[in-house]
């Protein structure tokens, strides 16, 4: 009788142990995913008890950290934008001085345009006309409209009818409340 009771106890312990054991499916080599499967070989998704990712890889961002910092307007650090605008003197000018003055006007306007494009962005519209399997007309339109304040002219050069104006603007986070 004693032996029968001991045998029954042993059998129950063995059966309990067999139900509690959880087999871990070995992942293929060079994999960092561990699948915990109670049956040993899981064929269906419902049978999988747990999926673990060992040492998850760091997802690379498109921009590097340093590049990202330089492009985004920081709360503490103001952003300096520098552009070079170009302008040409008209053909029929009375004097070289007038040619310089008029070329400078055009160069300043070009510099303002470049600042507006850099800060606000450009609207681009494109249109292609294809007739009888041939491109008849291809049109690209770009436009920008902005208000620019406190831009400084750094340097002006005039050479062979071309005037170049280097312009700078400092942007602060406080200028953009929204």
């Amino acid at each position, binding site marked *: 009788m004693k032996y029968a009771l001991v045998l029954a106890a042993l059998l129950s312990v063995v059966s309990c142990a067999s139900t509690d054991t959880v087999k871990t499916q070995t992942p293929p080599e060079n994999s960092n995913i561990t699948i915990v499967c109670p049956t040993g070989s899981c064929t269906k998704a419902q049978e999988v008890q747990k999926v673990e990712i060992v040492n998850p890889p760091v997802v690379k961002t498109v921009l590097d950290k340093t590049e990202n910092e330089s492009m985004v307007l920081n709360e503490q650090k103001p952003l300096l934008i520098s552009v070079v605008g170009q302008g040409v003197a008209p053909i029929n000018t009375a004097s070289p001085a007038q040619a310089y003055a008029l070329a400078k006007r055009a160069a300043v306007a070009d510099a303002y345009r470049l600042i507006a494009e850099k800060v606000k962005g450009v609207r681009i519209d494109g249109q292609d006309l294809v007739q009888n399997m041939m491109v008849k007309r291809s*049109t690209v339109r770009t436009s920008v409209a902005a208000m*620019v304040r406190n831009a400084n002219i750094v340097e002006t050069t005039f050479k062979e009818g071309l005037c170049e104006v280097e312009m700078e603007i400092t942007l602060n986070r406080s200028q953009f409340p929204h």
Partner: protein
Amino acid sequence: MRSGNGDNTQPFSISSLVILFILSSATLFADEYLISYRSVIQDAIIYNETLTISHAMQKCPQNSFLNEKALLLPIKKSKDLKEIILQNYEEFLEYLQKSGMKVEHAQETRNSINHSTTRLTFQTHCFKVDFNDNFVTIAPLK
């Protein structure tokens, strides 16, 4: 006997009147002008430039200044603002640009041929102008 109260108030009233007159004359002598600027640039060549200066027919309602720093221009011969500005045109234009310019740019490329138009506009603003003996102070109002 006459009381001393009436004698004491009379000099005070005269002095206050004098102060009031000085203050009102100071505000009266500060002229107000309406100034606007516009330039059109086509294909990197200036096409048109317009600077409009006119005396304000009525008092400007604005109180605060658009630009913190006022522009000082020297007076050489006449006290006409148009002449003073034309004599110091580059300096005045730079001051206007710093105060804020509206930029409108449109570019079209059709069959690889490019055309562009850029408009720089300083919208009409009221300017407070103070004429002194040797210089004039110009400051735009908001």
